[in-house]
C-alpha cells in the first residue's frame, strides 16, 4: 500500500519540461530570469566593464599587466573576506565584526611568528582558530540568545579592536615578513607550474561538466542543452587561460632590466577556497541546509534541520575566513598595525558579496559572487590610487557603489517576488 513511489519507474508526467532544447531556448530562459529579477553576477560584470573603460581612458598605466597583477593581489583579501560574509548573508544575517576579527586573528598569528618562531602553517591555524572562536561566540549569541546579529557584531566590532591595540600597543606595528605568508603577495608561481595548473583546471571543469551532462541526460533528468555546456567550458577556458597568459608574461615596468612574471600566490589560494566552498554550498547537505534556513527558517526547522547549529556554523566559517583575509591583507602591506581590519575592509567585503549577486535578504548567494564582486570593489581604490585622487573620493565612490549594489538587490528582490521566479 505504500509502494507509491515504485509503481511507475522512470515515468514522466505531463507538461514535464526536461531541458531547454536549444541554445536559443536557454538564452530566452536566461532573459526571462533576468526580467524576473534574477540578476546573478551580471551587475558586477557590467560594473567591472564600466570601471575598466573609465580608468583605462583616464590613466594609461591602468590597463598594464603590472597593474592587473597588483589588482589581483589587492583583491585577494577582499575576496576572501567577502566569501566568508556570503555565508552569513545567506542566512539573512550580517557580520559587521568580520574585518576586525580578521585583524585580531592576524595579530595573534604574527605574534606567534615573531615572538615564538612558530611554523607559518601552525600560526595560521591558530589565527583561524581564534577567528572560529570569535564566530562561535557571535553565532551563539545570535542563534541561542536571539540577539539581532547587527547588534552582536557591532559590539564585537568595537570590542575586538581592543585586541590588536593591546597586543601591539598604540602607535606600533608588527613586521610581517614570514617568507611563506609574505610571499603570497610578493612571490609568483613558476610560469610552467602556473600553466599546468591552469590547463588542469580547464580540463577538470570540462570533464565534470560533460560527466554531469551525460549522467543527467542518460536518466532523462533536467539538464541544459549540450551547446550551453560547451559554451560554458569555452568561456571558462578563455578566462582561465587568458588570465594565466597575462600574469605569466613579463610585467616588469622595465622589461629589459627585470623579469617579473608568474601568477601571484594569492590567486591559487583564492581559487582553492572558491572551489572548496562552492563544493560545500552546492554538493553537501550542510550547504543545502544553509540555503534552506536562509530561505525559510521555519520550513527548515519543520524538516528536521538543526537551525541553531546551521546559524552558528555560518558565523564560525565567516570569522575563520576573516582570519585568512586578515593574513592576506597583512601579507600585502607587510605589517600588522593596531587598526588592522578596521576602516573600510568590512564594507568593501559586504559590498563585494552584494555586487556579486548575494542577497542581503538571505537565501541567495554563491562563493563565486565574492570573487566577481571583490574584483569590482578592488578596482575602485586601485584606479583612484593611480589617478592620485584625494582619499575622500575613495570613500564617496565606495559608499556609493555599496548603496547601488544594495538597491539593485532590493529592486531585483521585489521583481522576483512579483514575477515569482
Amino acid at each position, binding site marked *: 500500500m505504500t509502494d507509491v513511489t515504485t509503481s511507475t519507474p*522512470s515515468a514522466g508526467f505531463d507538461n514535464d519540461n526536461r531541458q531547454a532544447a536549444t541554445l536559443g531556448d536557454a538564452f530566452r530562459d536566461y532573459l526571462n530570469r533576468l526580467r524576473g529579477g534574477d540578476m546573478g553576477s551580471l551587475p558586477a560584470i557590467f560594473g567591472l566593464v564600466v570601471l575598466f573603460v573609465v580608468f583605462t581612458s583616464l590613466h594609461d598605466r591602468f590597463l598594464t599587466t603590472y597593474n592587473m597583477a597588483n589588482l589581483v593581489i589587492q583583491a585577494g583579501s577582499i575576496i576572501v573576506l567577502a566569501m566568508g560574509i556570503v555565508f552569513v548573508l545567506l542566512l539573512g544575517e550580517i557580520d559587521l565584526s568580520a574585518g576586525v576579527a580578521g585583524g585580531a586573528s592576524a595579530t595573534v598569528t604574527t605574534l606567534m611568528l615573531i615572538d615564538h618562531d612558530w611554523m607559518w602553517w601552525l600560526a595560521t591555524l591558530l589565527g583561524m582558530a581564534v577567528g572560529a572562536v570569535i564566530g562561535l561566540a557571535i553565532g551563539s549569541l545570535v542563534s541561542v540568545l536571539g540577539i539581532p546579529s547587527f547588534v552582536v557584531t557591532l559590539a564585537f566590532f568595537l570590542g575586538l579592536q581592543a585586541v590588536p591595540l593591546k597586543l601591539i600597543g598604540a602607535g606600533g606595528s608588527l613586521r610581517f615578513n614570514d617568507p611563506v605568508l609574505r610571499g603570497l603577495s610578493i612571490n609568483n608561481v613558476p610560469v610552467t607550474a602556473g600553466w599546468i595548473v591552469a590547463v588542469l583546471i580547464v580540463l577538470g571543469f570540462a570533464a565534470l561538466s560533460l560527466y554531469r551532462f551525460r549522467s543527467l541526460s542518460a536518466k532523462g533528468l*533536467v539538464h541544459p542543452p549540450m551547446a550551453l555546456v560547451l559554451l560554458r567550458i569555452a568561456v571558462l577556458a578563455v578566462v582561465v587561460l587568458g588570465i594565466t597568459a597575462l600574469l605569466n608574461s613579463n610585467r616588469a615596468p622595465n622589461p629589459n632590466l627585470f623579469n617579473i612574471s608568474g601568477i601571484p600566490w594569492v590567486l591559487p589560494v583564492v581559487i582553492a577556497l572558491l572551489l572548496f566552498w562552492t563544493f560545500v554550498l552546492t*554538493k553537501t*547537505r550542510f550547504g*543545502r541546509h544553509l540555503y534552506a534556513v536562509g530561505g525559510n527558517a*521555519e520550513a*527548515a526547522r519543520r524538516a*528536521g*534541520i538543526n537551525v541553531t547549529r546551521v546559524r552558528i556554523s555560518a558565523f564560525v566559517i565567516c570569522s575563520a575566513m576573516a582570519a585568512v583575509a586578515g593574513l592576506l591583507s597583512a601579507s600585502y602591506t607587510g605589517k600588522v598595525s593596531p587598526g588592522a581590519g578596521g576602516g573600510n575592509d568590512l564594507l568593501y567585503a559586504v559590498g563585494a558579496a552584494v555586487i556579486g549577486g548575494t542577497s542581503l535578504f538571505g537565501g541567495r548567494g554563491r562563493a563565486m559572487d565574492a570573487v566577481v564582486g571583490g574584483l569590482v570593489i578592488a578596482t575602485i581604490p586601485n584606479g583612484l590610487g593611480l589617478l592620485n585622487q584625494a582619499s575622500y573620493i575613495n570613500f564617496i565612490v565606495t559608499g556609493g557603489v555599496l548603496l547601488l549594489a544594495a538597491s539593485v538587490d532590493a529592486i531585483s528582490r521585489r521583481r522576483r517576488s512579483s514575477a515569482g521566479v
Partner: protein
Amino acid sequence: MVQPLLELRGVNKSFGVVHVLHDVDFAVYPGQVTALVGDNGAGKSTLVKIIAGIYGRDSGDYYFDGQKVEVHGPRDVAALGVEIVYQDLALCDNLDIVQNMFLGREETSRLGLDEVSMETRARETLASLSVRTVKSVRQSVASLSGGQRQTVAIAKAVLWNSKVVLLDEPTAALGVAQTRQVLDLVRRLADHGLGVVLISHNMGDVFEVADRITALYLGQVAADVPAKDVTHSQVVELITAGRSGDLGIAEDSANAAV
C-alpha cells in the same frame, strides 16, 4: 470495519482552566478520506496538534496500526509515518521542487549530494500522483501557484512513504481550478491506500472527497459518520448546534458542556 491506521481514544486536553477537548475519539482508516469539520474554536487545531505530537495529551491513548504507542514529540509522529501538511506549507522559496521534497532528508553518494537519484525519485512520485500542473521539477518553488505548492507539499508526504497524511485547510487559499487539482490529489492519496485527514470549512470539498466525517462541537465529537449517510445540512447543523435529529450530542450533555 477495517482496523484504523491511526486512532485516538478518550483524549482530553485543557489549557489552564479551559477544557478544550472532552473525551475525543478519532480514527483514520486506510484508503479513506476522513474529514474533520467543526466551527472555529471547536478544537480542530488542538486535535491536529495532538496528533502531530506538538501538544501532549492530558489523558487518552494514541494507537497506530492497532498498537498503543507513546508519542512524545513531532519526531516520534514522523517516525510512525504520519505527515502533516500545514496551511502555510513550509516550503523554501529559494529552493527548487526536488530540493524541497528532500529537505532535511537529502540523499548523498560518495561525491556529495546525489541529485540524480533525488530527481529521479521526485519525478516518480509526481508521476505516480498524476501531477499535471508542474512544468519542471527544477523550478524554484517561488514560481509556483498556491495549488502547485500544495501539490509539492503533498507529494513530499507521499515520497516519504507516509501512511497517514493530515491536510490542514488545503484549499483555503485556492481558486476553482486549483481546488479541483488538490481534491483530485487528495482522492488519489486515499486510493493509494493512505489514511487521509482533510480539515476543511468547505462543505463542498468535504462531500466531494470524504468517506467519513468527524464533526467536532465545543471540544466533543458530535458525530463520526460515513459521508454518504448524512446530508449537507445535517453536517452544518452538527457543526453549529452539535446535533441534528438522531445524530449528535444528547441535549443535556450538550448543555452541560457549555
